[in-house]
């Protein structure tokens, strides 16, 4: 029997009323957006107070330097106030992305490895003419300037170059009776040293001291998973096979290094591993230098360059302060930006770890160095064969396919050829899709 329809109680609410109310709220919110949303720029007035917003990663030591530069700028430009937005490093690019998407981009922003993703989407102002006019770049590393040239536009210049190198424990070299590595050494010398420096004290297969902790970088093989212009995948080149096979042999055949999976899985940070003498040589980067100085103060260490395998090469990246293409104050932003290209700023930012792009500043940095490493000069030598990742759009998505495929090689679940066949296919399809869509 069908249930008898109950009369609506006087307390029961008509759901249509709720719907109406929701509709009114949404309409009010959308209407409100148009009323209070971003409006047109006010007319330019040289006397009008201006506020510049600058986004940087929240690094306390760097913030002090930024603030000093800004204080100097504000003193010279009293009508301009600069607000620093210090964003925690882990979510820096995500937060910046949201700021840009919401139509409230900072006027200036710090850029590191994420540069290409933002630059390829038109996030930065072309400063080519201003750079030529106001900044003496004759002493700049030409390659470093080239890194910031996208689609014919010069989007800025770096104040710091990050370089990868090898750090080694001199005491362990002495104990093994080995000469310290030269900057121009080769793979055979590297492998011979790594073998002699690898120690299995109990003979039980558990390595107490690895000759090398890390991978040999793609740069010394001349390998890249994606072409320089980002138009095609290059995962199946002989250089890439060399990269995978050689690195696999380091942990699989020669046992001079832990596998990349073991390194990822190790709960110890690399400085602890190095300090405890569990690694005689280790891959490191310029940003590691302050931590090595602090945490490995008791260790007698120095640095050297990568051994030559197929070629000489050092992975490199850079950092720059760039101007947003959406800034309403390009002239004021450029005046501030200029200070971040100066020799003084480069020197101060690179003191802890980094290579100044300006050669004379780099030489000054090496000359005044009183700390470890003694061979800081190696960074200047490295300028000749820096090997950055291609600066292309969608690199995070494309590289994720490559890194996933590499994982299978390190885990031993795929051969280098099989893994790179997969990566090549997936990257090619993604590149084609992005090209079809004009991205």
């Amino acid at each position, binding site marked *: 029997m069908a249930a008898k329809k109950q009369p609506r109680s006087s307390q029961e609410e008509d759901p249509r009323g709720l719907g109406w*109310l929701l509709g009114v709220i949404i309409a009010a919110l959308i209407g409100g957006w148009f009323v209070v949303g971003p409006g047109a720029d006010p007319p330019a007035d040289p006397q009008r107070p201006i506020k510049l917003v600058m986004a940087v990663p929240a690094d306390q030591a760097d913030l002090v330097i930024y603030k000093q530069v800004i204080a100097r700028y504000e003193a010279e430009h009293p009508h301009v106030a600069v607000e620093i937005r210090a964003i925690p490093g882990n979510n820096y690019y995500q937060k910046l992305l949201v700021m840009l998407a919401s139509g409230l981009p900072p006027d200036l922003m710090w850029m590191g490895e994420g540069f290409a993703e*933002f630059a390829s989407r038109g996030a930065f102002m072309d400063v080519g003419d201003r750079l030529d006019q106001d900044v003496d770049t004759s002493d700049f590393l030409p390659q470093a300037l080239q890194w910031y040239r996208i689609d014919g536009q010069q989007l800025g210049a770096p104040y710091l170059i990050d370089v990868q190198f090898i750090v080694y424990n001199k005491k362990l070299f002495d104990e093994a009776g080995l000469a310290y590595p030269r900057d121009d050494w080769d793979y055979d010398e590297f492998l011979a040293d790594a073998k002699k420096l690898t120690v299995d004290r109990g003979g039980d297969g558990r390595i107490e001291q690895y000759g090398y902790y890390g991978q040999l970088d793609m740069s010394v093989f001349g390998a890249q998973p994606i072409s320089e212009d980002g138009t095609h995948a290059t995962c199946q080149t002989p250089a890439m096979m060399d990269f995978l096979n050689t690195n696999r042999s380091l942990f699989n055949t020669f046992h001079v290094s832990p596998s990349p999976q073991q390194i990822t899985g190790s709960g110890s940070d690399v400085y602890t591993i190095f300090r405890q003498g569990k690694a005689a040589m280790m891959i490191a980067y310029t940003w590691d230098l302050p931590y090595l100085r602090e945490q490995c103060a008791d260790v007698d260490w120095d640095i050297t360059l990568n051994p030559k395998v197929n070629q000489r090469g050092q992975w490199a990246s850079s950092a720059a302060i760039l101007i947003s293409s959406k800034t309403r104050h390009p002239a004021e932003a450029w005046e501030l930006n200029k200070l971040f290209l100066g020799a003084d700023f480069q020197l101060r930012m690179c003191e802890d770890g980094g290579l100044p792009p300006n050669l004379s500043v780099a030489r000054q940095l090496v000359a005044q160095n009183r700390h470890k490493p003694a061979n800081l000069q190696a960074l200047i030598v490295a300028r000749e064969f820096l090997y950055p990742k291609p600066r292309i759009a969608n690199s995070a998505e494309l590289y994720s396919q490559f890194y996933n495929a590499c994982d299978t090689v390190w885990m031993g679940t795929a051969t280098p050829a099989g893994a790179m066949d997969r990566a090549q296919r997936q990257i090619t399809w993604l590149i084609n899709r992005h090209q079809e869509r004009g991205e």
Partner: protein
Amino acid sequence: MRHHHRLTPLLYLLPNLTGFAIFVLIPVAAALVLSFFRWDLFHPPKFVGLDNFIDLLGWRRDAEGVIHLNDAGFWKYLYNTLYLMLAIPITMFCSLVLAVLLNQKLPGRMFFRSVFFLPNICAGVGLLLLWKFLYNNDFGLINHMLAWVGITGPDWLNSYNWSKPALMIIMIWGSMGGTGMILYLAGLQGIPPELYEAAEIDGANVLHRFRHITIPMLAPTTFFIFITAVIGGFQGGFDMAYILTKGGPDGATTTLSYYIYNHAFEYFNMGYAAALSLVLFALVLFVTMLSWRFGRGATE
């Protein structure tokens, strides 16, 4: 006067509804619309029709006629998500056992109830970091204990085969004493004791009583826990992937929610991420309706 009566409660609801509209209704509607657009957050969204869904769910043939999925990752990460959801029945079983134990009139039961609920009130990130140490291959407690009995433990979080079970263990540990256990406890206390007394007089032992009284009487609770766990399961895994494994190795611990995040905030494919969300929504809806269709009969 009648009109006034109708308006007053709506006005009371206004603050809540405003928040609901801003943080739920509009974003959900925007995601639905965005799934038909291509948007990298820099340029204005561009309408692409069903392109995102074709990229997501479609396939292609290569020159040799071999079929390749357009987005093989999606299917792999869907599999990962479903694999991790295998923890749901185990968690539910553990919750039920805990609830039955803690429903006994034992000394210290309030203390144990609190202890088992503790993971739910602790900061998730802190707990996950703790698990990272426990799973560590070199000095982790778990492998250390396995070594006591002569077992060489796996490299839990870096092994393709062991990383998913490792995450499942965390999920079970974290959830078995949570809301599931509380709901079962409430359900157990709602079972009339006369039923047990009558069964006991009829000669039913503990297992009979559990099988024929407790389980049927808890069926509505079980159904509710199951439905909410399935919905949560489809949406879950982000925090563990983000903190413990970054989705690796080789995507073994990437779940759909982590994949959506990657597309939105790492790859700048906001439209594609919205399409993924919509497919995930459809999946949750389908499975929930299926559970509702077949599960409701069992509870009535």
